[in-house]
């Protein structure tokens, strides 16, 4: 099966940047109510407006290999990047994941995220792969970042 790419399994076993760290501007807790997967995620942002940079993303992810690996790749891809670029990566990830397999993803934009292309063929798992990403955009919004330029203003995840 092409779902469990080596890259996904590696990230799920040894998630990068895992753990909750200080300092942070916002913390969110998102769950996938169908399976009970949970992620607590913190973002730390420096700078304002177009100059805003994601200084840190730290998280505690509990769930299936797809959701844990996805949070790991998220942290890998967005830490140290301008917020606008990070949101672009989110958009690209979401486009790929909701394409039902039509979009394979650009490694230049989403890095290790391309390993999740196979997830798009399993509609029940798309939410797992997006859990960390929707938590991330929610956390950015709560940190005061304007995320209205993305269509992510209303994340599909459940916030609590």
């Amino acid at each position: 099966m092409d779902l469990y790419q080596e890259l996904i399994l590696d990230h799920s076993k040894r998630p990068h940047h895992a753990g909750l760290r200080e300092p942070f501007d916002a913390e969110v807790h998102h769950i996938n109510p169908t399976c009970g997967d949970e992620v607590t995620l913190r973002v730390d942002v420096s700078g304002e407006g177009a100059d805003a940079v994601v200084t840190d993303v730290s998280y505690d992810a509990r769930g299936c290999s797809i959701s844990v690996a996805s949070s790991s790749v998220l942290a890998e891809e967005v830490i140290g990047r301008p917020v606008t670029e990070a949101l672009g990566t989110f958009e690209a990830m979401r486009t790929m994941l909701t394409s039902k397999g039509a979009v394979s993803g650009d490694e230049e934009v989403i890095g290790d995220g391309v390993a999740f292309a196979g997830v798009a063929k399993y509609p029940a798992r798309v939410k797992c792969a997006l859990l960390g990403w929707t938590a991330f955009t929610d956390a950015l919004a709560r940190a005061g970042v304007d995320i209205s330029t993305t269509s992510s203003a209303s994340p599909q995840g459940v916030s609590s």
Partner: protein
Amino acid sequence: MPDVQPFTDRELAALRGEFPILARSVRDGRPLVYLDSGATSHKPTAVLDAERAFYEQHNAAVHRGAHQLAEEATDEFESARATVAGFVGAPADEVVFTKNATEALNLVAYAFSNAAPTDGPKDERFVLAPGDEVLVTEMEHHANLVPWQELCRRTGATLRWVPVAGDGSLDLSTLPDLLTERTKVFAFTHVSNVLGTVNPVTELAQRAHAVGALVVVDACQSVPHLSVDVSTLGADFIAFSGHKVYGPMGVGVLWGRAELLEVMPPFLTGGSMIELVTMERSTYAPAPQKFEAGVPNAAQAVGLAAAVRWVEAIGIDRIHAHEAALVDALLAGLAERPWVRVVGPPRGVDRGGAVAFVVDGVHAHDVGQVLDDAGVAVRVGHHCAWPLHRVLDAAATTRASFGVHNGLDDVQSLLDALDRVPAIFGIDVDERRAG
């Protein structure tokens, strides 16, 4: 039941032939191994035919109209009620058709809160106030938990629950503290949809009645798998779904003792359920019509009646014996795999048709995905029993649940597919064995 045997290979092959969906393949041509009957059962041709025949030959809104089709549709619907009632040992007028089991349980829960504000005489048994208690258990499906939480919130009553012991049974040592004169309702499941535990309904009902509490039983996981006879069960209400007992989706059943249905206020109101309506107020039809507002799900009820006739023709005791043999074989197979932890009662204890387990170190979603890749359909997650999973210290479990068409070959397919899991996710099987 010493004389009741599992199906022979020939009988099983014939039964399988009655389920059109089993002829299809999944995931690139693999045969479908359906082990998710606990979520919903497949439908034999007899049920599909009955629902279609209703629409083709008798279709009309029941309990309305003066034409022949309306008469026939009403007869079909009421005859379905009698059939389904007979299946659980009840008189026809004690069976209410609902949308599903969840609605049936809500119907009872709302009877309690509706009893409070209405004018006129009310039955004290359905009046809840601060100081009163509602007792549930930790192993409930959300459908038999959330409606009671909401009822307590509306009325100020207190929700209490019986804990689950380590072996997957209810910890009945707590009952003297939990089941008291304050308890107005004790709602619990007959068979756990996760653990497979069969609860001692009659004993629990006796103890509840001794303190004056009403007894509501979620029979969703018992009615399809073992003989349920409300005349001896001891409960005051049972709820079950049609679609889990080979019937169509969209029909559930509430059985209630006639004298209770008579005094209960209605849940949903509107057409069909009335006796007399003026602009100011209305009076209501006798039960069960009082609880069936709007044009009912007649075609689905007719389909459900066909399903229970089909089950009766096979024999529920034989179905139980057959599924018990499959459960035992699966438990034996899982016991040979030390990296698998089964939740619920140990081998040898009577169970329902479900076996849930955890592969330590691998999330159930991932286990289910590997099984699905082999064409084996199971349920993963918390199975609408999230509090129970917290007790089990498992975020999610993988659940195989059997139906009448399953055989030992399906058990083997599950075990073979499961054996791929450790390699894919890097679980060291030998280390687990040594440990």
